[in-house]
């Protein structure tokens, strides 16, 4: 392995950015491809696919054998709102492999009793996100229904390029939210990335079902990154 490639790869991994170490198995030459780097030809296609799936493996491209070692940060899920939906979502997210955190400044909601096994901050998103900034491998779901709590976090998620941004509320609620986010300086294009109403349309009725719909939509967003299929199925 090229020492420079190792340094580059570790720097990307420390910064929670995705990168692939591409090794030509015939001559051992390697290089690091960062997510978003343009790679031509058949190799470029398999690399794009590997970034989406997160799976390492040997591939044949352009008549050569390559090994792609895919380093994708473990996705985080930040939920603003210590509500019913979040109670159902916490164990599901853990099972699906997401590190979930909940932020809610309302101390009556954000209690260890209601959320025994999940990182919980009974503080304003402004304060928590300053300490633990959002990034491209973080999903943010805002579910408090309270603009004072949700809006700042949504704007921060758009600014950080979170791979998923979702907000609970009806279309009417969302229309008002769009105006407030525009006033906060978000662009229309950025605001269109928000999944609202939140969750895949599976006809979810209960908080637990909405949690399923949200988690499914988060997974879809993660696995369709950078592809044409950036589906925006939505519901609740």
């Amino acid at each position, binding site marked *: *392995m*090229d*020492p420079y490639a*190792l*340094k580059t*790869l*570790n720097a990307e*991994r*420390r910064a*929670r950015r995705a990168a692939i170490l591409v*090794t030509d*198995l015939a001559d*051992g030459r390697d290089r690091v491809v960062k997510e978003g780097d343009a790679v031509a030809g058949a190799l470029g296609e398999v690399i794009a696919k590997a970034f989406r799936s*997160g*799976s*390492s*493996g*040997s591939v044949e491209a352009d008549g050569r054998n390559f*090994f792609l*070692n*895919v*380093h*994708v*940060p*473990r996705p*985080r899920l930040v939920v603003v709102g210590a509500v019913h939906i979040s109670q159902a979502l916490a164990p599901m997210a853990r099972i699906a492999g997401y*590190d979930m955190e909940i932020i809610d400044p309302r101390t009556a909601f954000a209690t260890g009793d209601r959320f025994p096994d999940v990182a919980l901050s009974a503080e304003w998103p402004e304060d928590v996100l300053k300490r633990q900034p959002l990034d491209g491998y973080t999903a943010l779901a805002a579910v408090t229904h309270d603009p004072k709590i949700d809006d700042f976090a949504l704007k921060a998620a758009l600014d950080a390029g979170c791979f998923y941004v979702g907000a609970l509320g009806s279309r009417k609620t969302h229309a008002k939210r769009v105006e407030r986010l525009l006033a906060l300086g978000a662009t229309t294009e950025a605001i269109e990335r928000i999944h609202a109403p939140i969750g895949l349309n599976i006809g979810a009725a209960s908080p637990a079902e909405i949690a399923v719909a949200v988690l499914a939509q988060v997974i879809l967003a993660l696995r369709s990154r950078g592809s044409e299929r950036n589906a925006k199925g939505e519901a609740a």
Partner: protein
Amino acid sequence: MDNTAALDEARDPLIIAENWMKDGKDVAIATVVETWGSAPRPVGSHLVIDADGNFHGSVSGGCVEGAVVSEAVDIIGSGKAKMLEFGVADETAWQVGLSCGGRIQVYVERLG
């Protein structure tokens, strides 16, 4: 895929390899590139080895590390990368507590 939101710097094989390199050590990196059957460690897993045979990480959960380490020490000397293949015997697998019996291919190369 990395298993924590933040890297576990003290245990991450690639971070350790970089630190060894900075300390002026000669290092080999072994990588699982293919698995068949129920292999204990997934494709992409690393074992890093220094010239004295110290190692971190895992390519098989204990079954074949010894063989990989001794090959790696040679490869540090020669600089010539090698593809190793192991059938993880059921009996061995049972002894180290693995329900495997798979086969793995491990690519071993010198760093630099």
